[in-house]
């Protein structure tokens, strides 16, 4: 139970930092809305609904990347990470707390972006929404680990998308498939499998990334 309490405390800390500083969430919101408007002009007339679903996924992945790029910056700047690593809690709790906080930001951004997508482009059915939710979990789980790696590097803003995008390709396949396919169950199951595999892998390997 202490593990869950640690995770909850770490998540709360991130949410509180965001509430006071407002560094990440407004940027994500504005970014995703601007992207949708850009897509309206990028899609020629009559290019069809499937193209819009594809572009929605581009918007989601890049919005997540925007949030993830900021995820560990406060920790790095104020050397909080050293303190967290020294704290008497399991290191993977740090990863889980950050993943949950990033997930909350991403869901909040999507709470605005998805209705806007329906308004501007095409309706979304339950399978498409399920795909978005499941893929969010995968992106945040893998992304918060990659972001912790990248933040120690010299060129962290450039590095993060390079690290995450090849790993996100299966999620995009699953998400787009769930939105456009006639039998979305296969794709949802695939995204669920991805989440399970990579969440366990990230959970197990986080400790090695942050310790000196």
């Amino acid at each position, binding site marked *: 139970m202490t593990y869950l309490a640690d995770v909850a405390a770490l998540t709360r800390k991130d949410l509180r930092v965001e509430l006071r500083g407002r560094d990440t969430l407004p940027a994500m919101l504005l970014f995703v809305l601007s992207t949708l408007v850009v897509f309206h002009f990028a899609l020629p007339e009559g290019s069809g609904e499937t193209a819009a679903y594809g572009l929605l996924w581009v918007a989601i992945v890049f919005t997540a990347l925007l949030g993830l790029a900021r995820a560990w910056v406060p920790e790095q700047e104020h050397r909080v990470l050293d303190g967290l690593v020294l704290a008497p809690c399991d290191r993977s709790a740090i990863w889980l707390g950050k993943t949950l906080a990033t997930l909350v930001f991403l869901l909040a951004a999507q709470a605005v972006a998805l209705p806007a997508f329906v308004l501007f482009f095409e309706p979304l059915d339950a399978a498409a929404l399920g795909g978005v939710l499941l893929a969010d979990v995968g992106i945040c789980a893998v992304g918060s680990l990659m972001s912790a790696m*990248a933040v120690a590097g010299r060129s962290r803003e450039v590095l993060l998308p390079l690290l995450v995008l090849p*790993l996100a390709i299966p999620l995009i396949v699953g998400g787009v498939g769930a939105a456009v396919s006639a039998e979305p169950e296969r794709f949802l199951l695939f995204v669920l499998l991805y989440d399970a595999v990579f969440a366990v892998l990230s959970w197990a390997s986080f400790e090695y990334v942050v310790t000196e």
Partner: protein
Amino acid sequence: MGLALVLALIVAPEDADQGISQRIFYIHVPIALTAYFCFGLGAIKALLLLWRGEERYDLESYVAIHQGTIFGALTLITGSIWARASWGVWWTWSSNQLVLFLVLFLFYCAYFMLRFSLEDGPRRARSSAVYALFGVALIPVSFLAIRLASDFIHPTVFTRDGPQMSGSMFATFLVCWGAVTFLAYVLYRVELAGKRLDADLRELREVLQ
């Protein structure tokens, strides 16, 4: 190597369907398999590094992935030539193996970006090792994803009933595979020796200063 080339170019019977261009198969597929093997080796060394914490595994993992990336790039090039010869296009998204290699190539290029961006030290070694481990998890997952995403056109040579080749073709294939694996092993040893020498020299210089 020489024997493999002779067998592949002259001895093996021509494919009735594809003619001369099919001969690139004897180079393309062994290179692809060797690339997978190198990535797997890199991941095993990475796992050993995380597990045992011995520093030498870092360099071994890095060199194995470096070789894998070189062979992966060669796979893309030979695959592209083969695609041009038999389908008339330099690139096709319907070939699952080629798309998978493109994804892997991007992934492992990012591995090098990560390595060159971090400061030398145990943290870089461990981060690289974790990323290398993600790579071997990504291979089957991406393969599944690409297969889900597209229809299946690439000629399937290895099915559940075993290889679909005649005896002499299969023998040639095996010799080529052995030759390419041997080449990869020699390159791996040479690069590892060079990198070790480099590290020793740097240490020596620091001691002298």
